[in-house]
């Protein structure tokens, strides 16, 4: 399932490429963007099917409702812009005009998390998953690498109803083997077995957590790593409870605020089913700031080394 030799590949490219593939198979797929098509890579679809691509200009609220109207008529709109503008700016439109009528709109937002980098806090969506997760009937998916993005986008196109997919700006290590990995929305992906601690993550922090778990292993801490791309509905709940039963300690890691994202979803499930100590690692209740991508990952404690330091310190103190 895991890739033996890792490459660095762009999840956004995966999105652009798979849109073109899906567009060939399904004429109902249409794509909307708000003047960021080169960044989100929907430009690939624009080039292939110009009649089915709508550049809405810098007007995200109008874009969301235009997508709703297209969906009313049986189209499958994929709507893209940066995660900041796709969610916070259009929250009312997404809630009232897409989710309330349960329309088949797929919002695929790029540039989620602190790794937007130098553009700084105004462009770093650290609350998008929290917003999207709280709307009824919304499906929320945070894939981890190029190969998983392709499968997740296909899955989004096949299920009916609103979907939010969050992609990173960063070019990421490929974790999953394109031949052997099959995205399964029903389950958490067990990356490795362990008995001392369960680490739950998704998105671009997965490769950091994998590397961190190897460092922990070298120091005698056996971590069980669970990748949970589907944050809502939270089908992986039973896998997380199962693992927590074994390890008795859960740590969540995400490139998102510790309020309302994956960490909160894990706490909600455990508090009701198996009260367990949970350490949530993400951005604390604060805004981001400008910086180079790697420097920001270090600053917010999301890099493999920083994760290793914090987690080993936490476990040794326990």
């Amino acid at each position, binding site marked *: 399932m895991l890739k033996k030799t890792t490459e660095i590949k762009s999840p956004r490219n995966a999105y652009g490429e798979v849109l073109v593939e899906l567009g060939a198979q399904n004429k109902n797929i249409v794509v909307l963007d708000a003047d960021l098509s080169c960044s989100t890579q929907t430009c690939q679809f624009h080039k292939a099917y110009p009649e089915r691509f709508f550049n809405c*200009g810098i007007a995200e609220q109008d874009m969301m409702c235009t997508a709703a109207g297209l969906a009313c008529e049986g*189209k499958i709109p994929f709507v893209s812009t940066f995660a900041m503008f796709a969610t916070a700016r259009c929250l009312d439109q997404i809630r009232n005009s897409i989710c309330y009528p349960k329309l088949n709109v797929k919002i695929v937002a790029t540039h989620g998390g602190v790794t937007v980098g130098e553009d700084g806090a105004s462009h770093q969506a650290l609350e998008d998953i929290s917003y999207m997760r709280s709307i009824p009937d919304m499906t929320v998916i945070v894939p981890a690498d190029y190969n998983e993005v392709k499968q997740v986008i296909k899955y989004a196109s096949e299920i009916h109803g609103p979907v939010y997919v969050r992609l990173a700006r960063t070019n990421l290590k490929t974790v999953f083997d394109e031949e052997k990995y099959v995205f399964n929305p029903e389950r958490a992906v067990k990356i490795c077995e362990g008995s001392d601690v369960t680490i739950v993550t998704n998105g671009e922090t997965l490769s950091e957590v994998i590397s961190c778990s190897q460092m922990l292993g070298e120091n005698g801490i056996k971590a069980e790593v669970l990748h949970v791309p589907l944050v809502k509905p939270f089908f992986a709940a039973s896998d997380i409870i199962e693992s927590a039963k074994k390890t008795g300690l859960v740590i969540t890691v995400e490139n998102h605020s510790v309020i309302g994202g994956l960490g909160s979803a894990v706490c909600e499930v455990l508090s009701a089913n198996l009260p367990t100590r949970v350490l949530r690692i993400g951005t604390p209740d604060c805004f981001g700031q400008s910086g180079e991508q790697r420097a920001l990952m270090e600053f917010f404690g999301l890099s493999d080394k920083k994760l290793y330091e914090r987690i080993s310190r936490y476990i040794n103190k326990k």
Partner: protein
Amino acid sequence: MKDFNNSVRRDILKMIHGAKSGHPGGSLSCVEILSVLYNKIMFVPRDWKKSPDFDKRDRFILSKGHASAALYSVLANCGFFAHEELMTFRHLGSRLQGHPSTRLGLEGIEVSTGSLGQGLSIACGIALALKLNNNPAYVYTLLGDGEMQEGSVWEALMNASHHKLNNLVIVIDKNRLQIDGDTDRVKSLEPLDKKLEAFGFEVKEVDGHNEDMLEKAFLSAKESDKPFAIIANTVKGKGVSYMENNPGWHGKAPNDNELTVALEELNA
């Protein structure tokens, strides 16, 4: 048509009275607009999704979703659903939600609205899809004049003219009042006709209670190669003397006595 409009107005008042809440002013102002659309202009099969011609229907979007009582009453009086269901308006479990919803399968409702400034964008999406599908149907949407203060309405107007959506007709129910008072005083929209023209629309201004003028404007919209806007000058609370031009009746239900007086006036 006068009898039809009168029944619609009576239903609106009875529904809002029964619900002890609702929006009489902006519902009464758009009765003739809806009546002309449903009785003379739009093709919409009364048996709704059961009709083999369902896909050919003209689409109507009530962007000013708070006028739901007017739309429900027009739909019921046209036979989309049973007239007695009107009195479930705003009650727990009703298909007649405070603002229109598609979740409950109510016949005649195309989209969910209520949060202002979104219906026109949805209408543009539908109009784009109809063009992609080579479907000659029209999309009609009704906005309030106060609703035009929402910035996203102007995003949508740009979108409509950019895509030359000549299958789109918008009507602005210009009753000149919003919750906090005169629209001109709260935040003026003038010159509305010139603004709409500048945004690429062909504009006709009519008396929104004159059915002949409304009908002519709708017919001329079909001849236009541009998106079309009808500014319908109306009276908020039209037909009930004490409600007319009174912003206090934007979102308030008549009590028993007030209902009796209103119904007597409409009978006269």
